[in-house]
């Protein structure tokens, strides 16, 4: 069962192309991480999937056209667009009552159970809650909906590391059941690495990279080497190279570990490393040109270290 199927999905705002004829298939039971820099087209893609924006090309979500059949689709789809969108005037109890009143797939007991683990009071208004509590409330509501597709657009933006960790654990343990499909975008890439089944990089409206995490783990290796061994290492065609503390870090795609091992330390790269290789360097893939890494990749990896 294919949850999301896009063929030639295209969207432009005037002359600016937000989505450049992309093709995409997401099967049921996958957890897809949609990763890209700001303005890459992530939110446009999600909005198209959620029927919030018009598009050209073919798009089918759970077998429906999200633009023309949005009302029916929303019974099976849940999404968190942004943690800040819960209405500030609403009481916690009202929010539960309302969703229970209108949603055929909402499990009130489940929402109560989620909230019982937090310090959120039923009588509080959203405006009285801290940012983390608002996110907890929103996620408690969304995770109590028996949706077939859950879309999370930066669900943990601005939340502290403890909360983020707890959230992804909960998503994996309490919510995901292999019959749902989850699509997540986030900038804290490495934090979601362990929960994803698939990975997709988007840049300037194009899907520049996509693979399953099983593939990812076997395909990519990182070699940390000394200047002396650099020529030999470069001969193996790394897809990216960067310098840290006088040593070179080279990223390889489909190069056996045994070939790399003699040249230095070999390790499995994080998503962020590969992301920077694909998107951080505009000239990629250019194996031999030492990349002019202008910004240290630590801006992406920092959260995970």
């Amino acid at each position, binding site marked *: 069962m294919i949850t999301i199927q896009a063929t030639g999905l295209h969207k432009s705002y005037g002359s600016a192309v937000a989505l450049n004829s992309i093709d995409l298939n997401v099967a049921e039971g996958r957890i897809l991480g949609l990763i890209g820099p700001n303005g890459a087209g992530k939110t446009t893609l999600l909005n198209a999937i959620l029927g919030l924006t018009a598009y050209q090309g073919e798009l089918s979500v759970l077998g429906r056209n999200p633009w023309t059949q949005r009302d029916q689709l929303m019974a099976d789809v*849940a999404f968190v667009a942004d943690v800040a969108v*819960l209405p500030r005037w609403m009481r916690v109890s009202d929010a539960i009552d309302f969703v229970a*009143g209108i949603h055929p*797939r909402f499990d009130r007991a489940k929402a109560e159970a989620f909230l019982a683990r937090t310090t959120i009071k039923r009588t509080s208004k959203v405006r009285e809650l801290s940012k983390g509590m608002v996110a907890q409330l929103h996620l408690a509501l969304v995770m109590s909906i028996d949706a077939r597709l859950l879309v999370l657009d930066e669900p943990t933006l601005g939340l502290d590391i403890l909360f983020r960790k707890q959230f992804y654990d909960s998503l994996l343990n309490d919510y995901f059941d292999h019959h749902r499909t989850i699509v997540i975008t986030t900038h804290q890439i490495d934090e979601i690495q362990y929960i994803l089944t698939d990975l997709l990089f988007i840049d300037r409206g194009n899907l520049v990279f996509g693979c399953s995490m099983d593939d990812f783990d076997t395909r990519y290796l990182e070699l940390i080497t000394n200047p002396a061994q650099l020529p030999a290492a470069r001969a193996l065609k790394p897809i990216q190279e960067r310098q840290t503390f006088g040593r070179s870090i080279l990223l390889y795609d489909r190069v056996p570990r045994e070939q790399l091992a003699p040249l230095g330390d070999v390790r499995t790269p994080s998503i962020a490393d590969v992301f920077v290789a694909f998107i951080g360097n505009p000239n990629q893939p250019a194996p031999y040109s030492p990349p002019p890494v202008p910004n240290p990749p630590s801006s992406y990896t920092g959260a995970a270290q």
Partner: protein
Amino acid sequence: MTPQTDALPTSFPDAERTTTAVAHISEARRLFWSIRRELWENRAIYLAPLAVAAFIILGFFYSVARMPADIMITSSVNGVEQVHHGLDPILPYTIAAGLLMGTTFLVAIFYSLDALYGERRDRSILFWKSLPVSDLTTVLSKAAIPLVLLPLLTWAVTVVTQAIMLLINLSVFHLRGLDTTALRTGLPLTQNAMLLLYHLVAIHALWYAPIWCWFLLVSAWARRTPLLWATLPPIVLGVLEMITLHSGHVFEFLKYRIHGPEGSDVFSANMSMSSHMPLAPTQFLSTPGLWTGLALAAVFLAAAIQLRRYRNPL
């Protein structure tokens, strides 16, 4: 480059999946919850008229209790004398009705202008649109506030307020040993209540429907200051017409819409709901302006629904 993430899921036992019984939720139920939601968000809808009613009752109690007995006596006997003293006993009741009607009229204006604008301003529209409530249901629930709920609420609050006023009036008269016959029989409150209901439904709901729906449309469309967008363009249009064509059709049209059809003068109906019916229902229903107005209201409402449905929410 268009790579695909179509790696098939490793086999998960499909048989285990217990299909949760999905409760059917009717559109009527969703409409009900959406209207409730509006009342949670906009408590002024009922708090404003209740506060004004409380203020009226207190003020009335104070004035009746302090009023010199001779004035009350003259005011309680019917006939020519009342008019001489300018103290028609129905007057406070009429003023109460007018104040309440004015209050809810203002509430309706501000509510309608904010209804589809506020949810975009605070981004909560993204939350509402994540739930299976159609844009049709949402917009109808918002339109129901000025079109249905506020007129009925105004009527109910007015009737209860007037009943309490009458009770106060009777008790005070009784305590002070004054004759209450005129109060008990002379005040046409039941008749007025019926007239008020007719006025609210005919004018505030039906005649003003295009105004409320225009406000809703502007609130769905405007990126900022819906009040200005709702009011300035018609005025500018009217002024332009006066300058270029030296005629005043736009202003005539606006005046007609706000003033109400011939014979149903809003203010006369507000202030002297005494004996005569302002406009016979058959006469009202055969006014072409009513039907063109309702058609216009339907167009505005449909446009508001389309905007909420198809425009980028933010």
